[in-house]
């Protein structure tokens, strides 16, 4: 029979890229920024990380470069939405397309070469997987127990009120977007450096979109993001594992399951908002809205 521990170990590494990207997007969205450019930032990180790891021979340097590259490309989104107050949805989509194209162009010299091997971390689990798991309580603590986190949430819930209280809405959002970019970059680099060990165009194959779905599924909480990443990763791993063991499984149905769950969560959230006064677990109040200080 299938050993549950081995499934769990596979699940851990399968969910790591989307966990990083979704945690980053969570922070951005809690600051009121809807950045649909996750896929573009991931692929940028995947390329930059791979290139740095390949050139230096050190995979960890690769992850650092990926974080930097993800944050740098997210600056494009910052300029568009925070300086020029462009529409966030359109800017995010543009960032995705731009990132995919940019990475494809600069990735040409890195096709066909191989990344240096990653040293295994404690319990034979990749160091970056551990880092991803550690980021969950860290992000939770930051959002719920720290003062900067409180300000960030305030900016996301009601930017006019936060501004009236004297908090820098734009600066907070810039920092949140950059953090989201860095996290997406690391998530993308996990695919190129730790999973595939090679650079290929379009290698993130939609992981960024799954990360966006997970943030909704999580109801904008860090533990929810972990649950979502494990659900998405777990379903994939489990159905492949069942197939490998020769069990007949309805593959398409299982692949659909996490998306169905996300739709269900969305329905539940809107129902709760309609029927309860507390309206818990809803999207941040200023999500996707641009802020312009009139006074």
């Amino acid at each position, binding site marked *: 029979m299938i050993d549950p521990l081995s499934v769990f170990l596979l699940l851990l590494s399968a969910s790591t890229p989307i966990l990083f990207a979704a945690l980053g997007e969570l922070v951005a969205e809690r600051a009121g920024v809807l950045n649909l450019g996750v896929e573009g930032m991931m692929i940028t990180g995947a390329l930059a990380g791979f290139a740095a790891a390949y050139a230096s021979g050190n995979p960890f340097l690769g992850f650092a470069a990926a974080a930097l590259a993800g944050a740098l490309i997210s600056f494009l989104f910052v300029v568009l939405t925070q300086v020029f107050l462009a529409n966030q949805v359109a800017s995010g989509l543009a960032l995705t397309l731009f990132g995919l194209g940019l990475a494809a162009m600069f990735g040409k010299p890195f096709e066909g070469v191989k990344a240096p091997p990653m040293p295994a971390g404690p319990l034979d689990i990749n160091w970056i997987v551990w880092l991803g798991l550690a980021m969950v309580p860290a992000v939770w603590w930051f959002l719920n127990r720290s003062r900067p986190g409180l300000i960030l949430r305030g900016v996301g819930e009601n930017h006019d009120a936060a501004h009236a209280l004297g908090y820098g809405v734009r600066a907070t959002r810039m920092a949140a977007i950059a953090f989201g970019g860095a996290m997406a970059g690391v998530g993308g680099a996990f695919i190129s450096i730790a999973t595939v060990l090679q650079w290929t165009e379009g290698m993130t194959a939609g992981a960024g979109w799954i990360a966006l779905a997970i943030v909704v599924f999580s109801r904008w909480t860090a533990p929810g993001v972990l649950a979502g990443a494990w659900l998405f990763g777990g379903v994939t791993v489990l159905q*492949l594992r069942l197939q490998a063991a*020769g069990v*007949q499984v309805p593959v*398409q149905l299982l692949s659909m399951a996490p998306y169905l769950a996300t739709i269900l969560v969305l329905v539940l959230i809107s129902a709760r908002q309609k029927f309860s006064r507390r309206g818990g677990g809803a999207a941040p109040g200023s999500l996707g809205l641009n802020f312009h200080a009139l006074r």
Partner: protein
Amino acid sequence: MQRRTLLATASAAIMALAAPAMAQDEPLKVGFIYVGPVGDGGWTYQHDLARQAVEEEFGDRVETTFIESVPEGADAERALTQLALAGNKLIFATSFGFMDPVMNVAAKFPDVKFEHATGYKTAENVATYDARFYEGRAVIGTIAGRMTESNKIGYIGSFPIPEVIQGINSSFIHARKVNPDVEMRVVWAYSWFDPAKEAEAASALLAEGVDVILQHTDSTAPLAKAQEAGAIGFGQASDMAAFKPSPRVASIIDEWSPYYIKRVGEVLDGTWESGSSWAGIGDGEVVIGEITDAVPAEVKAEAEALRDKIGSGEYHPFTGPLNKADGTEWLAEGEVASDQDLQSMNFFVEGIDAQIPQ
């Protein structure tokens, strides 16, 4: 007045420029649409190498353009129309899912010739071409059967379509021929190219005790996973030489250049005719990449002998006696599978303990 003079001068200049160009032979414009990016390192990469070979062969006589990452479906029709309107007289559509778009666009442009890869619909101006990948699978199946120590070999399938099923059957038949204890595990990834998913599929197979992985998906991710676990695998579509000498111990390379050069030449001569081409090892369209030293010399010699026998036409990978998985007879002793049988193959052969998803 001045404006009119300017216009007159401009049009005269254009006429003057255009005239000599019209006088000499215009290059034949050849268009390509690809389902993936040219940098995928696999399927599309190989098609693009063949396009470059066409340019090299004919020089100034041809002019090629390509559109990459075209999704299968309605968008393909738009891309094909665009190529036809741009004056391309020969268009290669390099994926199965472009079939109906090709037929629709071909009906609208009767003077444009179309070549559709791996499909089965033809018309006056639509030809199809494919490669007998299953011949290559027989060779690597032999190596897999010899190399496995756990007697479990894994196969990452893309979609349950005849082309992929042929490959699974062919590799299994030849693995079992050299190793009667061998078992085959099949995982469907439902994607031609998704490195993360392919890596997970490989991990799932490895966790199941598989130590040789075959793949019909296009990324190198399964090889990377095989390497971590000390297992072996094979290059798919392109050589995947970065993983030599192990885990990549051999590869099946799609070599489209001979066909593309031949067909472009025929259009230039005016001898092009519609038809269906299905070439294999013998025609140089399916190439076995270098078998590395990770494989013992006698296994290598055995595999190469099989390759040469298939190439010369002396041996067909689907030669009876062969039964279907449900136990019914498919091919009698010495009987060879017909091409129609292969092109509609929707069953596993006896011994593969798995179901084909319907």
